[in-house]
Each structure stands twice: as structure tokens, then as C-alpha cells.
């Protein structure tokens, strides 16, 4: 009599996740902005690195070694701020998660909703972050090397970079959501209902 295949169609999960993002505007903006901040920092260094290595061929070694650590630091900053904001965002919703479990949502539905939401936020943050970081990177290169930079922009390199940073942003936000999301999904509904932040 008991059937196991409770399915949640992708369109429904996308809809719920989008509603959640739309209706929790302030929280979503904070998460997107903190992602964008980290990603734009990262993009800035990658873009300046790219431009410098295109224009100053043969001298890029020194710049790369110096930038490598800055990039590592920017990734760490980005990850920490993301983990922090997603953790709090999910803690706030323990009660809601408990209610959904009472209504019959299996663990994987809850996980899926939270992960789709964070992937969407990561995509948004990645896009804004890349745009901002690329623009400031190009501007600062213009100041260093003159307007000649604009004429010889390595566009294919940019395209590759934009793809990489967006994927990175999405992966990073999924990873940072995974831990609190797994914890939330595995909660006993009674515990989740009575969880006070």
C-alpha cells in the first residue's frame, strides 16, 4: 500500500525555489551581493592578469606568482562569506523545513529545493560579480597601460574567464549550502519544528 516513488517535478522545484528567492528579497540580495563581492575580487585579478600577460608578453611570471596568493585569499573570503550567509538563511527556515516534512516532503525534496535555490543565487552572484570585476579590472589596466588596452582586449580569454567564474560561483554556493542543507533535510520533523534560532 505504501509507495516509495514520491516525485517532485523539476518545474515545481524551480518554481518553489524562485518564489522563495523573490519573496525573501532582502536575504537573497545579501547572499547574491556577498557572492558577487568575492567573485568580483577574483575576477578583477584574473582579468588584470590576462590583460597584463597579453600586453607584456614574457614578463608575466612575476605577476602570476604575486597574484596567485591574492586569488587564493579572494576565494577563501568568498567561500567564508557564502557559507556564513547560507548557514544563517537555512537556520532561519528550520521551522518551515519541519512543516514541509510534516506535509510529507521527503529528505531529498528538501535538499533539492535548497540546492536549486543556492545554485540560482550563485549564478546571479557570479554574473554580477564577473561583470563588476571585469569592468574594474579593465579600467585599472587602462590607467596603467593607457587606452591601448581597449583596442586589444583578449575577448576569447574573457569569454572563457566568464564561464569559469560563473561555474565556480555556482559550485561554491552549492558546496557551502550542502552542509546546512543536508543537516536540515535529515532533521527529525519534531526537532525541526521546535528549533529556535
Amino acid at each position, binding site marked *: 500500500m505504501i509507495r516509495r516513488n*514520491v516525485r517532485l517535478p523539476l518545474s515545481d522545484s524551480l518554481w518553489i525555489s524562485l518564489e*522563495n528567492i523573490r*519573496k525573501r528579497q532582502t536575504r537573497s540580495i545579501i547572499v547574491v551581493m556577498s557572492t558577487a563581492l568575492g567573485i568580483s575580487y577574483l575576477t578583477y585579478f584574473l582579468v588584470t592578469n590576462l590583460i597584463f600577460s597579453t600586453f607584456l608578453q614574457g614578463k608575466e611570471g612575476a605577476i602570476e606568482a604575486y597574484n596567485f596568493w591574492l586569488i587564493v585569499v579572494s576565494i577563501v573570503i568568498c567561500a567564508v562569506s557564502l557559507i556564513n550567509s547560507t548557514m544563517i538563511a537555512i537556520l532561519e527556515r528550520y521551522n*518551515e523545513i519541519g*512543516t514541509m516534512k*510534516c*506535509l510529507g516532503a521527503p529528505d531529498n525534496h528538501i535538499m533539492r529545493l535548497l540546492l536549486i535555490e543556492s545554485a540560482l543565487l550563485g549564478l546571479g552572484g557570479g554574473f554580477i560579480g564577473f561583470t563588476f570585476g571585469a569592468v574594474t579590472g579593465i579600467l585599472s589596466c587602462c590607467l596603467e597601460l593607457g587606452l591601448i588596452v581597449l583596442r586589444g582586449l583578449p575577448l576569447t580569454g574573457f569569454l572563457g574567464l566568464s564561464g569559469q567564474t560563473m561555474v565556480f560561483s555556482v559550485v561554491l554556493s552549492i558546496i557551502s549550502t550542502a552542509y546546512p542543507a543536508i543537516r536540515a533535510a535529515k532533521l527529525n520533523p519534531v526537532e525541526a519544528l521546535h528549533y529556535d534560532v
Partner: protein
Amino acid sequence: MSEYIVETESLCRRYQIGGETVKALDNVSIEIKRGRYVSIVGPSGSGKTTLFNMIGGLDRPSEGKVFIDKVDVSKLDAYELAWLRCHKVGYIFQTFNLIPVLTALENVCLPMIFAGTQKSERMKKAENLLEVVGLKSRINHRPSELSAGQQQRVAIARALANDPALILADEPTGNLDSNTGLEIINILKRMNREKGVTIIAATHDIKIIDVSDDVVWLSDGKIEKIEERERS
């Protein structure tokens, strides 16, 4: 179809609190007949909520068995429990627990989404249920725009969404004033009579006890007495 919707066999639930073992439920065996309106009554700390959680498949017993519709809940894994909660049981909480970002209509749709109901069908059904509880004009309002009594009515509609055999209500009138509480009790009673859904309410409220078919008195995790009444 069996006569009993819920059966428990020497149900025990122990909690560890600061190294001490507390018995919240001690050897509770009850049988609840299909289609009845049952109150579980007792002072706070008597194990009402614990029993309620066991019957609803929200928590597992330390010892003993719970059968919902002849299915042994303790033998189910997490997915089967979720299925059971989705299809067999509807929940009503003291604090309503509506999802704040969704409208009344969407809140009622939610259990049907988890049950895999088609979109057009669930919209129609949710509208229908909201009409039944008298909220047709407010289907697109969010919980924050509804009064406490209206929120609880949305919760009743939500509990009925997947045509459960059983509705569990934990202090459904606890956060409502006396008149609004009476409205909620009457809606529950009507659902019980019209749809034949079994209602189990944990309560202090004398008005709920008055309309109940059966009253289970709990104290210190044990059943004190079970009162069966003639159906009016």
C-alpha cells in the same frame, strides 16, 4: 478496511535529559476507530504531544508499536514515513505553521505538490478546499495578511489537501480567542461528519472535549481513562 485507524501496542517513549531518563509515554495502548472525533486531554507534561507525534509518524517509539491503517510505523524507513505523512495524515498546529512566503492557495497546494498532483488539478482542489473553510475571497493573501483564525482555516484546508484518513491537531485553538476557536472546532467537526476523516486533537480546550466522540485522558505518560460517548 479495518475498523481502527490508529492502534498502539504498549507504546513507550523515553528521553535522555541531562543523563536522566524521562519516560514521556509509559505503556500506552489505545485503539482509535475510523471516523471518530477524538480528544487527547491531560495537563502539560502528561505526554500528549509525544503521543501525538508517535501517532503522526513524526517520531519513533522507544518500545512498542504504532499502527496507522494497519501499517506498523516503526518498520517504515524515512521515505515510507514521508509518504505516510503525505497521504494518510494531515497536521494542524497550534502555531498554524503556514509557509510565510506562499499565499493561502499555494500553502494548500504544497502537500499536493509533494504527492505529485498535476498543477491544474491541485489549483482547482485547493480553491475548493479554501471555499469549504470559508476563505474563497482571500486565496491570494499571504499568511501575514490573514487573521489568526483565517490562518488556522488555511491550515485546515492544507491538512485536507491529500484526502487523509486522519487529521492530527495539536492544540488547534491554543492561539485563538474563544469565538474564533469555536469556529475552528465547528469546521473540524463538519469535516469529520461530511468527509468521514478521523480527527485526533490534543487539547486543554473544554469546547473541543464537548464535541468529541471519544476522550482519552492522559497523565504522567499513562492513560488514565478513555471515555466513549454516543455520537450526536
